[in-house]
């Protein structure tokens, strides 16, 4: 439990870092985006949701459709 508290504390401490607007040039590169294209994300999500029982459950509703794809 103590280790978990320390770990969470460290995460929060790191999370408090402030990056000024004028130092975000690399962060603005499309390569750094977690989701550059919503349709590509959908393609990926539907592919895994319909083939893996442990996919889905986050990001978008799982279980819509028959999953027979």
């Amino acid at each position, binding site marked *: 439990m103590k280790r978990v508290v320390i770990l969470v504390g460290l995460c929060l401490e*790191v*999370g*408090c*870092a*402030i*990056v*000024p*607007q004028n*130092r*975000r*040039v*690399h*962060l603005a*590169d*499309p*390569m*750094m*985006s*977690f989701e*550059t*294209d*919503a*349709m*590509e994300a*959908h*393609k990926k999500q539907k*592919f*895994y949701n*319909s*083939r*893996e*029982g*442990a*996919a*889905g*459950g*986050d*990001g*978008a*509703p*799982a*279980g*819509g*459709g*028959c*999953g*027979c*794809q």
Partner: protein
Amino acid sequence: MSFRSLQFVAALLTILPRAYAGEPLSGPLSGPLSGPLAQPVPGPLSDEAVLGEPVPFHIESVRARYTNYDQYGHGFQSQAGPLGGPGSERVTVEQPQIEVVAKQGKFTHRLWIPVDVVTAASPDAVDVISTASYRNEAGSIDLASTYQYDPKTAYQLRAGVHLEEELRSWNFGLGVSRSFADDNAVVSFSVNQVLDWFDQFTVHGVRQSRVFRSSTNGNLSLSQLLSPTTIANVSYGVTVQTGVLGNTWNSVPLDDGTIGAEKLPRLRHRHALAGRIAQYLPWHGAIHGLYRLYVDNWGLWGNTLEVELYQRIARWLYLRANYRFHHQTGIDFFTTRASVDAPLRSADSDLAPFFAHTVGGLAVVDLPFRGSLNQLHLDFGYDRYFRSNDLHVNVFTCALGFRF
């Protein structure tokens, strides 16, 4: 140094401080410097002066994507094979999608229309849907509107309908996101509801009735800038499903040598916790990492690791290589030969224990233009998915987009 050079340096030292102070100049260099440098600096420009008059409605982008899935493999839920043995899971899917994004004042609207044309061996073997089961078309219309309440807060509303030969589905969602600490952190929350209404068949293809399924989903996400080159994200999602949770024609080999229907619980709650990180690399590249933990009340656990490596080749071109590893335990009642009176049973290979790997790549071209067309987008990708219980899929994708 010549005398003329010394004269020139002396003149510069005299004139430059006066020019920066905005004083009118005179003397030998007064001609070229008396224009803009001598004018007082104007006040700050308004938004309209920089961006132009606000446009009431503006199409921001139009994008189309086409994906082809080519799947081979075998599973015990399929009847496209010998009785009691694994049947074919041969499937091809053509999936065109189109997306239009428009701005309207503080609103951003996204209209999205995906279509699936599925050609599948398994339903054809059962002939569950009259004579047309070998080929099945499905389409959706989804509209999402985002309202930028203030520079830090955005609300989203989405609704959609999905039409399939023997299935009707409606979805509805609400979301909010808020940024903190000068946009260093963004917290998002969303809820979604999906209602499915579809035909129930026996494993021999006889239509029985209409049945119902509900999926309620909530997501909480936090994104945080960790450094000028690092972004991290953690998210948690929970989905509660009730009703008929299978496609109803999956079969299960029984120990008396016949086949029976799947028997699934009518409630499933699913939890997924994911952590992602993106790091910019000094050689104009980037690396993304993901870990995802999944658990549900059917006894299924999943672990997923994903790595994406990006490399910019030119200002308008970058490449991506990706690898994904997935492992899941099977559900508690997975079997390839069930007893006749088993209260719960499934032989669905997607719910079995397996290891899965995906290896792929993508090339992205973003060509800038001047005028009404700002950017032309092209991408081409390929993924190879293969897993330990006899399934492999080739996925080709390409996209064409215009940003105005």
